[in-house]
């Protein structure tokens, strides 16, 4: 990739160092705490599925029962497997059912029991993580049998609420040219403190993320990938109160990309900051293992804040996302950092500003599969003007070598896309890609010209903001409304009651494997 902005490498290094300084205390907090969702994810990775008659998953029942009796500060694994070994329950589901009825006396194990429980739990988790490993191998095999599509990958959304309607729509979208299918979740699933079970046919503005829905959609996309001779990726959303569990399910069902932002839930869903950061680290360790590309949500900042004034908050968030991601074991190739084309088209030189912002992100993260989001805020209902704006977005995307283009719909903000809207949107991106796909090689901003100056300006503002954040602390900065204008205090929002400080001797057999990549496989 060529350098177009002539950024100061010293300033870029300083930006990364500041992001690390701001992020380190958060990582320390995540290392010393667990959450109900992390403990439930451990049980999911050990194969515990299903729900009681009210639809409450057994993982919730079992974790709640352990929490109510011996607490979770030692983790769920030791008490659960100790109870399993000490009795004649057939499996974790039977144990969970009995525990839900108060029929299991959990205790914090010690001595020989603890060693046996540890061994049994570790064996179960090795099997679950082994399944994630074999899914990763299977993905590579399928890409080999079909083909890796050229970048930019075209990202399309389906969201009917009914998985059985989503499947034909997703297959049709793939046939029309989509490289990535994202199944938007039902509105508000991010605020549920459990993951629904089974295939679902009812959702609000989206389809529930469930293990069975994941499995059904991945199987359908495998079929269409073979038909098209091109591997079609599947995306879902991990952010929310169940980030670790949904990450586990994504790994178990071979999803390919996951929305996983370090601050999205905090800012936009009012989820407690501590809960989010602790959950996020574990979820990203699973994504790292599964070979999943994460997508971060910086585009959202520009829907509440002004895209010019707040351009540097996007860069700051990307640098924080990068720090947290790498600390959790993700590689550059797994960092689908997000940004968006959201500048008011009435602003003079708006396209030049978009080029500068997009190029800045490209140069700061040269090896990351950047995800570029189309205009939404300034799509007015004038579908003709909107189609033009989407074409400029596509042009900016190809000129600045963006990796993943979410395809803009000219009917954005009017209705969920009609079949024809999607077809026209794909015609738009195909035209731009075919007509100008190689324009990047000749796109050389004038030295010291408007685009270079704007790139330097945003980087400078980013470093200034990172200095402030690393001095006052990230949690304080979030409480002050630094991102997306919204103020989110560290002890506010949903889910703080699900955060538990780890005791000495805390045992998490999943973390033991995930943090020691050589442990199995």
């Amino acid at each position, binding site marked *: 990739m060529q350098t177009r902005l002539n950024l100061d490498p010293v300033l870029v290094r300083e930006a990364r160092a500041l992001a690390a300084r701001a992020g380190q205390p958060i990582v320390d907090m995540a290392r010393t705490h667990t959450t109900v969702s992390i403990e439930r994810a451990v049980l999911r990775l050990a194969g515990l599925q299903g729900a009681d008659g009210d639809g409450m998953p057994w993982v919730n029942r079992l974790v709640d029962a352990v929490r109510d009796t011996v607490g979770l500060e030692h983790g769920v694994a030791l008490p659960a497997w100790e109870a399993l070994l000490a009795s004649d329950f057939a499996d974790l589901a039977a144990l969970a059912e009995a525990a839900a009825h108060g029929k299991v006396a959990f205790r914090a194990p010690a001595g020989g029991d603890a060693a046996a429980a540890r061994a049994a739990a570790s064996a179960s988790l090795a099997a679950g993580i082994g399944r994630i490993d074999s899914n990763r191998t299977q993905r590579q095999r399928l890409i080999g049998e079909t083909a890796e599509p050229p970048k930019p990958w075209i990202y399309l959304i389906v969201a009917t*609420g009914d998985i059985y309607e989503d499947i034909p729509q997703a297959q049709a979208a793939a046939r029309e040219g989509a490289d990535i299918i994202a199944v938007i979740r039902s*509105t*508000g699933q991010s*605020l549920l403190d459990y993951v629904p079970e089974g295939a679902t046919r009812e959702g*609000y503005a989206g389809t529930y993320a469930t293990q069975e829905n994941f499995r059904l959609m991945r199987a359908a996309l495998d079929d269409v990938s073979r038909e098209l001779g091109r591997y079609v990726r599947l995306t879902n959303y991990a952010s929310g109160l169940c980030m670790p569990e949904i990450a586990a399910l994504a790994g178990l069902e071979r999803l390919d990309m996951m929305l996983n932002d370090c601050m999205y839930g905090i800012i936009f869903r009012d989820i407690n900051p501590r809960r989010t950061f602790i959950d996020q680290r574990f979820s990203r360790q699973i994504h790292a293992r599964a070979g999943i590309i994460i997508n971060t949500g910086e585009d959202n900042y520009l829907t*509440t804040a002004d895209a010019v004034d707040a351009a540097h908050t996007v860069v700051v968030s990307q640098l924080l996302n990068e720090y947290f991601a790498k600390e959790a074991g993700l590689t550059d190739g797994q960092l689908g950092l997000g940004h968006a084309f959201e500048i008011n088209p009435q602003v003079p030189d708006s396209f030049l500003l978009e080029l500068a912002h997009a190029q800045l992100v490209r140069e700061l993260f040269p090896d990351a599969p950047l995800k570029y989001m189309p205009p939404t805020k300034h799509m007015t209902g004038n579908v003709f003007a909107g189609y033009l704006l989407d074409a400029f977005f596509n042009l900016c995307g190809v000129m600045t070598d963006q990796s993943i283009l979410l395809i803009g719909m000219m009917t954005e903000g009017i209705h969920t896309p009609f*079949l*024809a809207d999607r077809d026209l949107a794909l015609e738009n991106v195909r035209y731009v890609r075919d007509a100008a796909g190689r324009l990047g090689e000749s796109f050389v901003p004038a030295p010291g010209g408007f685009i270079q100056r704007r790139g330097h300006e945003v980087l400078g503002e980013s470093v200034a903001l990172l200095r402030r954040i690393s001095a006052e602390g990230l949690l304080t900065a979030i409480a002050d409304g630094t991102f997306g*204008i919204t103020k989110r205090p560290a002890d506010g929002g949903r889910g703080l009651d699900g955060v538990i400080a780890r005791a000495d001797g805390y045992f998490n057999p999943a973390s033991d494997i995930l943090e020691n990549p050589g442990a199995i496989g």
Partner: protein
Amino acid sequence: MTSHLVRPYGDTTGDGRVQVSFTLPVPFGTATARARAEGAALQLAAKMGLDPAMVVHAKGMGPDYTFFIVYGRVSHLVDVAQVTVTEREFPLLSAAEVNLRIRAALGRKLVVVGACIGTDAHTVGIDAILNVKGHAGEKGLEYYREIRVVNLGSQVAVPDLVTRATAERADAVLVSQVVTQRDAHVANARQLAAAFAPAGRNRPLLVVGGPRFDPTMAASLGVDKIFGKGTTPSEVASYLVHALAREGVAA
């Protein structure tokens, strides 16, 4: 009333020219299929009152669907005099005027409690109206010195909203609804009105907003005011002053 008759205008007065686009679930593969598809599009155009009509673009989308763009002439006349519109019943005020009116009429800050209710997690609407940052170049209600804003955020249960509005002594409750599947926005607005009904005349002003609401439906939903797509913070602030801080009305 004098009628005022017009037709759509293409490039000549009275030419009646319009453009429509639509998709039919018909294939566009073989020559016969194409002719049949275009004929079907023209049949629909005729039933819509386009005569003559011309298919200017037809494109197959996958094996089973065809997209059409059709131009045609409609003979229908529209009587502009028969159109009824809801005129804005209050003047638009500047932030300074809003603050002045609140001080004069209430002698204290005007309290607004805002939320997205039900399962709706899309706070973009309520945030655009309430956040300092605002929307469409206007600052939000938090910017008004004489308005105290309590933004409860997303997915607030209606009973919790009632409790909080009472505790805050809210003058007005603002609710935003973006999700409209199965008319959830209408059901939620009714639920809101019902929950505040026991307070009778002492209830706060109920204001609902969202892109898919019909602004004329306030009375039938039991709320005081509905704002549609494109509403700006100053319109909301001006309405609140109109309803709650009229000149000479002490509250």
